[in-house]
Structures are given as structure tokens and as C-alpha cells.
């Protein structure tokens, strides 16, 4: 770290999606996140990480493990418990030429820094022309008895706040590639990393620099029905789809919510004629509502059935596992809704 926090990288290369001949390593979703942070911090001295316990301790989930040792206390900063200050000082640091990546210990706590996010970070460029390149890492989602305050999926709040990009990868390779892309983006990016995927999901991840665009991706091809999902729900949707004959049910992983890959959604639905939109978040005004509304407007004439949604009902996420499973979408319920739509 000879000239800390000052050297910018030479030039951004074109996006290089993972291809067969690239060096890959199998890692968890969580390791992929750490890998992206390490890669980007090595590449660009302006990148710094800050948040509660992210320093020597490595963060509540160990996502920043090893970074303190490699990059030191200036670039891997433990902060007091103060989400508004974490976000707000990151905005300031970004305005002053750094590229902060801040961690909210659990996405649920973002509500305490919400104002800095939506009113300061989100509106800055449109209002003043000043860019705010920063990433807000948000460990989100349920499925492990975290209860009402450690299971939330707040992405729709951000989607309804202009000026924030919002992404939610479902695989280790996407986690790495989209976090790297987020760090190089010139705007505030809300990066929703699903806690329940952290250690459960493993996959091949390109070694070294790896960038993924903020677009949707068909993860399973089908002709009769499209299931639209993102984050942890992609895995359930794929599992549910696999219960049907090959080639019937398509699964579209949105990956990015803002920008929303409207073309990919519409192309898929126009082809299949039916759509099921799955959210882990509470139903009302969720991301899925936006997707459903989009489809009902722009793909109406291609629809062969109602635009179905499956989401958590409008209650907090319960603690007791049986209750929690009663609330979160499950593979069974996705498959059942898919079956109904196919039969429509």
C-alpha cells in the first residue's frame, strides 16, 4: 500500500463473462463475495470497506475475512453502530473520490440509515451532477429462524427510491461478478446478498477479475411458462421447474432489479405466454408487483393466462421454523402454482 487510496486502476476492461476456458474455482456464495472484495481492492486503491465489525473480526458473516490483514485499518474500517453515518460518510468519501463498500450488518438495519440512502445518495447525481460511486452490501433474506429483524428483504423500498441501483445475485459466480461490477459502477448500488445462500450454495467462480452485467439471465429454458425470480428464490424456482417435463418451464433469474431487464422479461413471457413471479419479500408493492405490472401492460396480448404471483404474505417473517416455512415461498408452493398455470 505505497500510495493508499489514491491510485485508480488503468482502464476498465470490457465485461468478460465466465467462459469454459477461464480458470475457475469452486467456492461458496460467501467466499465469492470476499473474493470480489479482495480482487477489487487489489485492483483499485480507492476501494475501501466499512461497517460494524468488518475489520479484524471479518464481519458478522465473515464476508470481509482477511481483508483487514491485507489492506489495513484505513481501507477496512470498523465503525460505531450508526447506519446513517456509515452510509452518509460513504457518500462523502465517494464525493471526495473514494469508492466505499459499506456493510449493513443485517439488511433489516438499513431502515435506520434509510434517509441517507434515499435522499442523499440516491438523488445526488440527478440533482447536482455529482456521482456517488458506492456499494451498500445488505445481507438479506430468511429461512434460518432469524425472526422478524434478521430476515427482511427490503429491495422494493430501494426500487421505489430513484437513483439507486439494486441487484440480487443468486449464484457464487454472479455474486462475485456483480459485486465487482457494482464496485466499478459510478452510482450507489444496493447489493442484496442472501444470507441463506452464503454457505449453502457452492459453484464455480472465475479466478481473478470477473464482471457480470446488471441484466437478467435465463437459468432454465422452457416453452410453456416463465417463472421470474431472483436471489434465493431462483433456486426454489429451478427446483420446482425441474419437477415438470424438460423444456416446459423457463426460469428467469432477474439478477438486477434496477435496472430491471424489461426486455428479457418480456421476451420470455411473450414466448411462453404464461408467467409466475416469485418474491421472498412481502407481497404488497414488492419487486414482483412491478414485474407483474410490466407484463400485464406490455405483454398483454401474448398472455395465455393470468399473471400469477407468489410472495411472502404481508406479515413479518416468523422465528419458529414451521411458521417461517408457512410464510416463505417454498418449492412445493411454487410447483403447485406453476402446475395451476400450466393447466390454465
Amino acid at each position: 500500500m505505497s500510495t493508499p487510496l489514491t491510485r485508480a486502476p488503468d482502464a476498465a476492461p470490457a465485461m468478460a463473462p465466465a467462459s469454459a476456458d477461464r480458470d475457475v474455482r469452486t467456492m461458496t456464495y460467501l467466499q465469492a463475495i470476499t473474493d470480489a472484495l479482495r480482487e477489487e481492492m487489489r485492483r483499485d486503491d480507492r476501494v475501501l470497506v466499512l461497517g460494524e465489525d468488518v475489520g479484524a473480526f471479518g464481519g458478522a458473516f465473515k464476508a470481509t475475512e482477511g481483508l483487514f490483514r491485507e489492506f489495513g485499518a484505513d481501507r477496512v474500517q470498523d465503525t460505531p453502530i450508526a447506519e446513517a453515518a456509515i452510509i452518509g460518510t460513504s457518500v462523502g468519501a465517494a464525493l471526495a473520490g473514494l469508492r466505499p463498500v459499506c456493510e449493513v450488518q443485517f439488511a433489516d438495519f438499513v431502515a435506520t440509515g434509510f434517509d441517507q440512502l434515499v435522499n442523499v445518495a440516491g438523488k445526488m447525481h440527478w440533482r447536482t451532477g455529482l456521482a456517488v460511486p458506492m456499494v451498500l452490501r445488505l445481507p438479506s433474506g430468511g429461512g434460518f429462524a432469524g425472526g422478524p429483524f434478521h430476515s427482511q428483504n427490503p429491495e422494493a423500498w430501494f426500487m421505489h427510491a430513484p437513483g439507486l441501483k439494486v441487484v440480487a445475485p443468486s449464484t457464487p459466480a454472479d455474486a462475485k461478478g456483480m459485486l465487482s461490477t457494482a464496485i466499478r459502477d459510478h452510482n450507489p448500488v444496493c447489493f442484496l446478498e442472501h444470507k441463506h445462500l452464503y454457505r449453502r450454495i457452492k459453484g464455480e467462480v472465475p479466478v481473478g477479475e470477473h464482471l457480470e452485467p446488471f441484466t437478467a439471465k435465463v437459468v432454465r429454458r422452457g416453452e410453456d411458462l416463465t417463472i421470474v425470480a431472483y436471489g434465493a428464490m431462483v433456486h426454489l424456482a429451478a427446483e420446482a421447474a425441474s419437477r415438470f417435463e424438460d423444456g416446459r418451464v423457463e426460469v428467469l433469474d432477474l439478477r438486477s432489479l434496477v435496472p430491471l431487464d424489461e426486455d428479457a422479461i418480456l421476451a420470455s413471457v411473450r414466448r411462453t405466454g404464461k408467467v409466475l413471479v416469485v418474491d421472498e419479500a412481502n407481497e404488497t408493492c414488492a419487486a414482483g408487483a412491478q414485474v407483474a405490472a410490466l407484463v400485464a401492460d406490455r405483454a398483454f396480448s401474448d398472455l395465455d393466462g393470468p399473471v400469477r404471483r407468489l410472495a411472502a404474505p404481508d406479515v413479518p417473517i416468523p422465528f419458529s421454523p414451521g411458521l417461517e416455512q408457512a410464510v416463505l415461498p417454498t418449492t412445493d408452493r411454487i410447483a403447485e402454482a406453476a402446475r395451476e398455470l400450466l393447466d390454465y
Partner: protein
Amino acid sequence: MLVEDPHRTTRERPVGHPTLTRADREALLGFMVGMRTFEERGVALYKQGRTPGSFYDGHGQEAIPVGAAFAMGPDDVICSPLIRDLGAHLVRGTDLTEIIRHHLGRDNRLSRGREGNVHFGDPAKGIVAMVSMLPDMFVVAVGMAMAFRLRGERRVALTFFGDGATSPGAWHEAMNFAGLRKEPVVIVCENNGLAYSTPTSAQFAVSPADRAAAYGMPGVVVDGNDVEAMFAATHAARERALRGDGPTLIEARTMRMHGHGSHDDARYVDPAVLDAWRERDPIATYAARLQGDGVDVDALRAAVLDRLDAAVDAALATPLPDPASATDGLFATEEPGPLGRGDAPWSGFAGPGDAGGPGRPAGAGDAGTGR
């Protein structure tokens, strides 16, 4: 016993303890032993995989919630005990079996399985459940205290939070409202040196007690490992609040002896520091003292263990909540009733149905007037 305070501050020290009877002292010890015993079992149940989610304990901090809650009257409210404050629930008399059912995610009256770990309260005992966001319930406590003041009731709200919880903006807003409007709120800051892995040196430049002056309220530093000192300081703060003189911030100095939660081995803590604090264990020191006074500590421990065993058995025999119940009751449909009265053993009030009775020590008349 007050610990040394390195910071300059304007501060009232509690002057003279109110009279504690021998029965009170046994009760204080009993609640501390109860908290520790419960939490040790809780850790075991968690490690056995019987407790879903996470488990947090307050090992070494028992004197704080027990001493503070013990100074309350039945009509006072606690808003809210946090993850180190199980003892406050025990003092208020919340049913042990219900608490264990709650922890295990079984059907229960306190949370119906919707909440876990220390996220429970007992409205029937004047306790409001915490939320995770720190220190949001302090703000709510100030609002409850405001209601008491506006109605001219002789009641206070007791609130708890840690050293780390003084950093969020909500703390400042609550301190400002409380100090400015002289709300009858008793503020207990448990300074256990750590917020998860973060030491206080990375949390703030000035100790919480010293910051109280910035809000026009006294800040008191108390040895958080001395249950009688906690009792006395909280009692004095309560008296002050009831006199209309406003809030007091009590900074209880202690040490977090375990990890942040049972998942955390706390390797980041210097073992020598833990060893030094272990010498000052609040239960061991108080037990030794009471033993010297002739209290049968072993019998007390045995009784606690018996009650715990019975409660755990009953809880384990309780079914999980009906999955169909997960979505009901989002909205209240009926006129809410008042919070119930908590047990206040020191004041002689043993729980709802008890109207006081003989043996009420002097000062118990302060314990509240009800609504």
C-alpha cells in the same frame, strides 16, 4: 462499590442504600442464579440444536438487570430488557416455562413462536418486548414515560441498552427528549466493553455517563457486577424521576464474559482481561457474602435447578405453533387494555392479585399507583 471513572463528569452518586431485608438479598441472589442457570441451559439447548436461530446470554452481567428491575414498583414498565437482561424478566415474574417455550419456538403466550431469543416481553407483567434495532426501545420508553408524566401517575419506565447502542442517532433523540422534557425514565447503559467485536475505544470518545451532562441529566457510574449497587443507583434514579426531576443515565461498568452470542467464540478478547473480571463474578462474590450471613446458597441453587428442569421438560413437551396461525393478528381489532403489573418483590408486590399486604418494607408506597 463504585468503580473508578476515568472521565470528568457531573454526576450524582447514589447516597445510601434503601433498606434491603435479608429476604430481598436472597431474592437478588436467587434471580441472578436463576438467570445464569437458565442461560447455561439455554446454551446447552442451542448447542444440542434444540433452539432454532441463535442464543445470547448475559453471563457475568446478571447483577445489572436483576438489581435494576428489583428497584421498580409494580406499575413501572420495562421497555425493554435486551439480550443481556433475562434477569429483568425473571424479577418481573414472567413464567419460566413460557420463556423456554418462546426460546425453543414452541407455542407460547409471549410470542406465539413469532419471535425468538430474548425478543419477548410480557404485557401482563409490564414488560414490552425489544426490537433488534438499537436502541429503538429507549425511544419508546421515553414515550411511555411521557404518558405517565402527562397523566400525573407515579410510574417510571426503565430502559436498557449497551455501550454500542449509544452510537445510533436514535439514542441521541431519546436522550434529548428525555432530558429536555424531564421524562420519568430510568436509563441503564450496560457498558460491557464490547459491541460484538468492537471495543468502546472504537465506539465513542467519551463514556456514556459523561455524555449525560450534554442532555441536562446526571450520569452515574456504577459497578455493574455489584447487584446492591445497581439496586441502589436504580432506586435513586427512580426516586428522582418520581420527584419530577427527570431521567438519570446509569452507566453500569461490567464485562461481556461470553461471545456476542453462542455462535461467537470471542477469540478477539484478551483472555487476561476475562480472567481479571472472572474474579469479580457478580454471583460468586454476592453468594460468598450472603453465605457468610447464613444464607443456604446451595439449597437456593438446587431449588432454581429443580424449577428449571421442570420448566424445560414442560416446554419440550409443548407442540410447535400451528403453521396456519402465522399470518393472523397483523392488525389489532379491539380497544387495547392496559399493561399489567409486574412483580416487584422488594416493594412486597408479588404479582397480580397481590394488593400489598404485611411485610411491605418502608418505601414500598412509592411503588406505583396504578391507573
